[in-house]
């Protein structure tokens, strides 16, 4: 095994050296507690507020104080859903989301269901798209919040957030989007998207792990998850992760300043990869929308094999990919996203997510394509399902032969 290839940017990315450089002073040199009144505290407070301004500007927030720093994208999602649900519980107890959200949203919804809320899980079409009219159909007088992810972490499909947001704005319904996969990757502007709350995580755009942010439009009430201090305007207690916050802002600024060129290059590489897989291999299906998808995301289902075996074989060849979300990889349970777009269990089992980033090259894709068919053929040769393929009928609807 020679060089390793990283094709799992949707799981996480490495910290950009420029980001690291910006963070380093805030570990040992400039370390004051931002809540302290002395000069040590003032300098870190300044760093945080500058970071807040940067993030606000980058996503088009009206004011810096609409940005709240958190510990992760999951925390931002939890805070948005639980925080709004609790703050508006007297107004209504109905929430609408989609069936293919990240577990940070879905499991929070399950928690809320156990605590007296009703949740509607909207279906998606075979490309993974939520249809805006289904959102309207699901609204009730009790509805306090709609949460639809900007782009899906597994299949990469980008949702019509702006359109849904417009409809909800007209009806005065709060709208949250989990933009963890899109911030720093495609343009994200909270005004254009018509959202009231938006989650992001620094480590998805070459920033540090352990830092996230939640945009909360001014006037929206959100109860805190964590109590114990006045940090983040009473909404998130705990001494701030200064280096992380500085890193998040720097990473977002960097990512957005090169966004169009990276997006174009990565999209081209992605399409090259998708075209090669679909044209050179049999019994394979591309999951997610062909064009309305994240620049770096390619998600395939290979019939007759298990994604787990495929991943481990790729890993042994030095290629890092995923079977879906990193949080569930290693799990034989088929992904709720793939089931959500209508795949049968068997096909959903054989899925592979390749997520490209700014460091990837055509040579790497070529190397990938020099080992992938070999592995897939080997695994299929061991599969009784493959041998029984001619008798196989029930799965035909969700499988596309070349």
């Amino acid at each position, binding site marked *: 095994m020679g060089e390793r290839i990283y094709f799992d940017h949707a799981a996480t990315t490495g910290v950009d050296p420029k980001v690291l450089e910006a963070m380093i002073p805030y570990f040992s040199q400039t370390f004051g507690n931002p809540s302290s009144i002395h000069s040590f505290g003032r300098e870190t407070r300044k760093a945080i507020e500058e970071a807040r301004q940067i993030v606000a500007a980058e996503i088009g927030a009206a004011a810096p104080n609409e940005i709240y720093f958190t510990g992760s994208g999951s925390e931002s999602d939890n805070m948005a859903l639980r925080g709004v649900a609790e703050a508006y519980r007297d107004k209504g107890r109905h929430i609408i989301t989609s069936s293919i959200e990240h577990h940070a949203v879905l*499991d929070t919804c399950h*928690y809320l269901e156990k605590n007296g809320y009703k949740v509607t899980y909207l279906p998606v079409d075979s490309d993974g798209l939520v249809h805006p009219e289904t959102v309207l159909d699901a609204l009730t007088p009790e509805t306090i919040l709609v949460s639809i992810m900007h782009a899906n972490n597994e299949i990469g499909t980008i949702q019509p957030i702006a359109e849904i947001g417009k409809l909800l704005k007209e009806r005065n319904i709060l709208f949250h989007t989990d933009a963890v996969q899109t911030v720093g990757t495609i343009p994200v502007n909270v005004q254009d998207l018509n959202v009231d709350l938006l989650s992001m995580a620094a480590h998805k755009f070459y920033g540090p792990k352990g830092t996230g942010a939640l945009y909360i439009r001014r006037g929206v009430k959100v109860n805190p998850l964590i109590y114990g201090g006045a940090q983040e305007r009473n909404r998130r207690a705990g001494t701030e992760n200064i280096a992380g916050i500085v890193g998040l802002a720097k990473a977002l600024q960097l990512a957005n300043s090169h966004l169009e060129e990276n997006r174009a290059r990565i999209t081209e590489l992605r399409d090259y990869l998708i075209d090669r897989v679909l044209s050179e291999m049999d019994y394979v299906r591309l999951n997610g929308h062909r064009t309305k998808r994240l620049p770096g995301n390619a998600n395939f289902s290979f019939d007759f094999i298990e994604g*787990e*075996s495929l991943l*481990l*074989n790729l*890993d*042994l060849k030095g290629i890092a990919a995923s079977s879906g979300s990193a949080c*569930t990889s*290693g*799990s*034989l*349970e088929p992904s709720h996203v793939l089931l959500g777009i209508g795949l049968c269990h068997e096909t959903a089992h054989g899925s592979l997510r390749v997520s490209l980033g700014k460091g990837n090259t055509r040579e790497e894709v070529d190397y990938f394509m020099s080992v992938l068919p070999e592995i897939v053929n*080997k*695994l299929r040769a*061991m599969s009784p399902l493959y041998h029984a393929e001619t008798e196989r009928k029930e799965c035909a609807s969700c499988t596309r032969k070349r």
Partner: protein
Amino acid sequence: MKQRVIMAMSGGVDSSVAAALLLEEGYEVIGVTMQLWDNDLPYGTEVEGGCCSLSAVDDARAVANTLGIPYYVLNMHAPFREKVIDYFVDEYLQGRTPNPCIVCNKSVKFDLLLEKAASLDGDFLATGHYVRRSFDAERGRFILRRGVDLSKDQSYVLYGMTQPQLAKTLFPLGGYTKAAIREKAAELGLRVASKPDSQEICFVPDQDYGRFIEDYQPGSVQPGNIVDESGKVLGRHRGIIHYTIGQRKGLGIAAPEPLFVKEIRPDTNEIVVGPAESVFFKGLLANELNWILWDDLNGELEAQAKIRYSAQPVPALIKPEPGGRVRVEFETPQRAVTPGQAVVFYQQDLVLGGGTIVQAI
């Protein structure tokens, strides 16, 4: 090119040292642990204890890191549940006393896991069992012998192995004593060196299998009568799953002489008890035979028969019967011959084969 071995690691001292020994022997080693618990447990549930628990995975991963080998957790929760736990529960409900390790080895470890090993281009799957496997050129077959450390010998749970399975399996520990393995673990600085041996049923961490079955199939366990050999009712039992042949404790019957479980009758939900001598049996009938030394048994055979994991092999005569069964006649009657357990046949340290006890005679 080095041969690749997929090492089944449980996080215990045995499989950890086995991995190290394979590396020393020059194999390329990849560690794997079968994840047998359900990933979708409610938040806050602690998954602890047992051979393939979360903490076992932590231990196995730490050992793999110490040894510098790749390590993967393979999710086998669904097949394990279907093939081992369902079987285990069903056997108890049918009045038998199952050995889940045997069925796990047969249907999960040396079947599904072996397939996974092949899919990772493994030349072999290895486990930390104390048993010796070799190729007998004269017979043209792979043979299995008891582990050198007879107090740790695990051939009883491996009698079901087929020739294709044995061809692809390594047991690095068969030639060692447990003491030597612990010493080796300490020498290697493995953090599991002094970890206690795992206990009985890996998926019932508190070993309260009765409660496990009641939770798994609510309503399946019903109290019933305890009767003597003449059918006279002597008392009540808490459900047949709580009893096994030869059991004395927990009957709750006052009698002039000690009473023991002699028979379990699932059809009438009865436990039959008798005096001490009534639980000694001259022989047994077994089915689902697997022979390691031959394809099939032709004619009578003198061997030593072992009727439970903790029993010593005793001299017996084995007679083939129609329907793929065998009749086993002990030289001297044996106590508590228990349907559902395996009978495994030996000639000295050579494992001949074995089957499942269907009836004591």
